[in-house]
């Protein structure tokens, strides 16, 4: 599927396979619903998909257009308190808490129709090994660009330094799945000032963002030599660190979801790279890392519920959206501040929709059943 955004307020062309269609909005909804449906197994999933499709239709229709027809949902009344009527709009007749209680019960007595069989930890050996090789390549690229950056700063070439800074930052973020595990090294390379007692004036404010601040605020390059040397020393450890990281199956599966959660929280908000405004390209780096992780996990995800295809569709759609925004800026990644409101909304909305699919990945790849916990009464009896 390919989605084109010729122009923000222009019509939208949808291409499914080889058939270009430019349908009226209602038709987009139904086409998308069929396309994304994948014979779901339970009614709430149908609703979720229909809502996602409706959102998609609204998004594709461009910004500022009226919202699509509301999706019909079953509304039921469940008994709670004699004086209170609780309406249930999720499509089932159970509250979330009741659903959870039943799921918990099911884990105690798994039977036909119960949870997916847990995977084995060994199933993750190959994906994690592939990821490790990938991240070593990225670590090497970081090192290369930081070395150039150091040279640019020594030569006083701010333009080249900015380019190398952005490249180094790109490759660092493409490590994606690793950075949660890098601990102090990550803070030294990529730490922000907000966590430090004296903010940007704190002596521990070092690394990429210290240099970013200098380069984009017109600080004399002489003052950046020592931060650049420090950064180069830290980055020299990156490849080995990445090779040695212990990655549990749960961590790896969770990363498929959370690399982009971090991007939405820290990068698209402008918090992480405030001076360069590189939040969009940083998000796209995180997308690249996520695409890689999902690719390695695909053999495991195949056949486990209907997770893979919606995830891949949303990944492709988000990729199409950011690419179209890039094209609209003449092929270069625009700074966050240069995005029009319409572009912002397309990026934010499609990332939100993608995240709502990605959060299915860790659940589909569990290596152990959710363990029911004992009650206080049971523990008390055990003690006696």
């Amino acid at each position, binding site marked *: 599927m390919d989605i084109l955004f010729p122009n923000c307020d222009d019509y939208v062309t949808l291409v499914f396979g080889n058939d270009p269609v430019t349908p009226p909005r209602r038709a987009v909804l139904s086409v998308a619903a069929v396309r994304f449906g994948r014979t779901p197994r339970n009614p709430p999933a149908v609703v979720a998909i229909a809502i996602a499709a409706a959102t998609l239709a609204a998004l594709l229709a461009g910004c500022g257009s009226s919202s699509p027809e509301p999706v019909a949902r079953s509304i039921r009344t469940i008994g709670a308190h004699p004086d209170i009527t609780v309406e249930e709009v999720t499509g089932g007749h159970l509250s979330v808490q009741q659903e959870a209680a039943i799921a918990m019960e099911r884990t105690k007595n798994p039977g036909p129709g119960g949870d997916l069989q847990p995977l084995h930890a060994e199933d993750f050996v190959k994906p994690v090994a592939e990821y490790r090789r990938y991240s070593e390549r990225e670590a090497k690229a970081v090192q290369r660009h930081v070395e150039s950056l150091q040279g640019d700063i020594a030569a006083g070439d701010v333009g080249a330094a900015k380019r190398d800074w952005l490249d180094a930052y790109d490759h660092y973020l493409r490590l994606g799945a690793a950075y949660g595990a890098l601990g102090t090294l990550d803070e030294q390379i990529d730490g922000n000032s907000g966590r430090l007692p004296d903010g940007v004036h704190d002596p521990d404010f070092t690394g990429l963002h210290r240099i970013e601040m200098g380069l984009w605020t017109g600080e004399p390059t002489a003052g950046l030599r020592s931060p650049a040397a420090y950064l180069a020393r830290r980055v020299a450890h990156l490849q080995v660190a990445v090779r040695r990281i212990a990655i549990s199956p749960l961590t790896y599966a969770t990363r498929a979801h959370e690399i982009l959660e971090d991007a939405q929280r820290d990068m*698209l908000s402008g918090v992480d790279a405030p001076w360069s405004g590189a939040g969009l390209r940083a998000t796209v780096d995180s997308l690249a890392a996520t695409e890689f992780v999902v690719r390695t996990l695909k053999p495991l995800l195949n056949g486990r519920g209907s997770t893979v295809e919606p995830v891949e569709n949303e990944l492709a759609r988000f990729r199409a959206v950011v690419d179209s925004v890039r094209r609209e800026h003449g092929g270069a990644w625009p700074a966050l501040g240069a995005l029009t409101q319409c572009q912002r909304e397309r990026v934010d909305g499609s990332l939100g929709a993608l995240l709502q699919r990605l959060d299915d990945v860790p659940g589909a790849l569990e290596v152990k059943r959710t363990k029911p916990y004992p009650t*206080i009464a049971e523990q008390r009896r055990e*003690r006696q």
Partner: protein
Amino acid sequence: MSEIDRRSFLKRAGGVGLGGIAAGYGLGAATTANASESEAEMAGRVNAAELADRRDFDGVHQAGILPPAASFATFLALDSICGGRAELMGALQTISSRARELTRGGAFPVEEYDAPPADSGTLGPVIAPDGLTVTIAFGASLFDGRYGLAARKPAHLTAMSAFPHDDLDPARTGGDVLLQIAAGHQDTVAHAVRELARPVRAELAPRWTMAGAVGAQRGPSPHSSRRNHFGFRDGTSDPDVTDPKVMDRLVWAERGGAEPAWTADGTYQVVRTIRMHVEFWDRVGLHEQEEMIGRKRDTGAPLGGTGEFENPRFDLDPRGERIALDAHIRLANPREPATIDQRILRRAWNYSQGLDPAGQLDVGLLFVAFNQNIQRQFTAIQERLNNEPMIDYVTPEGGGYFFAPAAARHPSDWVGSPLFA
């Protein structure tokens, strides 16, 4: 308030020659000619039911500390731009006088039609008390060299420095003076904020402000704790505010020792504005949410228990089979003999302030802790919480450490007067 103080306040308020701001209007103080109903009638009406609740501004402890969180609260942090000590004292005196009047309620007759009215009028001509409290506190920065207060700084007062996962915005952190303005309705709070800032513009400049609200009481019992933006009940394990011995141990400043005498009957106030990434949270399974918190979302009961106020019995669960060892409630209050003196009096309001630049809801928790010793209590707890799993879903962005002194003792006293004595 003495007559002279009142006149100087009125002069500050815009030079309106008001003869009398009616205090205790229910007993028929001021008169207005234009009203279609008599002031006594109007007062009777606005005093009815939920608007009638009146909290004494004067007393031993400031009125906004011990009671349960009022429905609405706004925090207003101010920086002193006073040239000298006398000016600062005057401004603080004015804040107290004005706060006393607002908490008492009254009528504000318009006497000079072509002058700016002495009151904004957003609550109408008769102001109902509506449970309004104005809690006044001082930040560490007030005790720098400017006003000769350095030697009198409360023993445990420092600037709030960032914890490892904070992303503090300096413009929304700290302040010389903090006002916690709380009441039963949002308009009462907004009115008080505006009227308190008005007479001290030349002395106290607003630094940051933030407004919050608590959820409605939705049961099941009248004591059930309200919910935060994560859907969990907040403040379940607070110490008993009706027990003066407990409050003397956990809330009110220590007598003697390192504490200067003027801090008696005061308390340390920690304010943290904690952004909650609710879109992310909404993508987390209920089981994982409950595991992070250590409680059931619906009932607020500790995992494996049945009622909200049931003891979580960590002693029966030393390996964390029932409540994870890094669950929020276990780290925040381990309920061990060694941590009994670390408990805090916790107050919290939910805030909502639009969207962040990435189109995500900018909502969170206006967290307040009253405690006797910030380092012994709040900081010790926070350090345990540094690496709790919930940290991925929240970002503390502002707030500060403050000292809320004793209440004004009588109507001509003011909050903070012993500091300058």
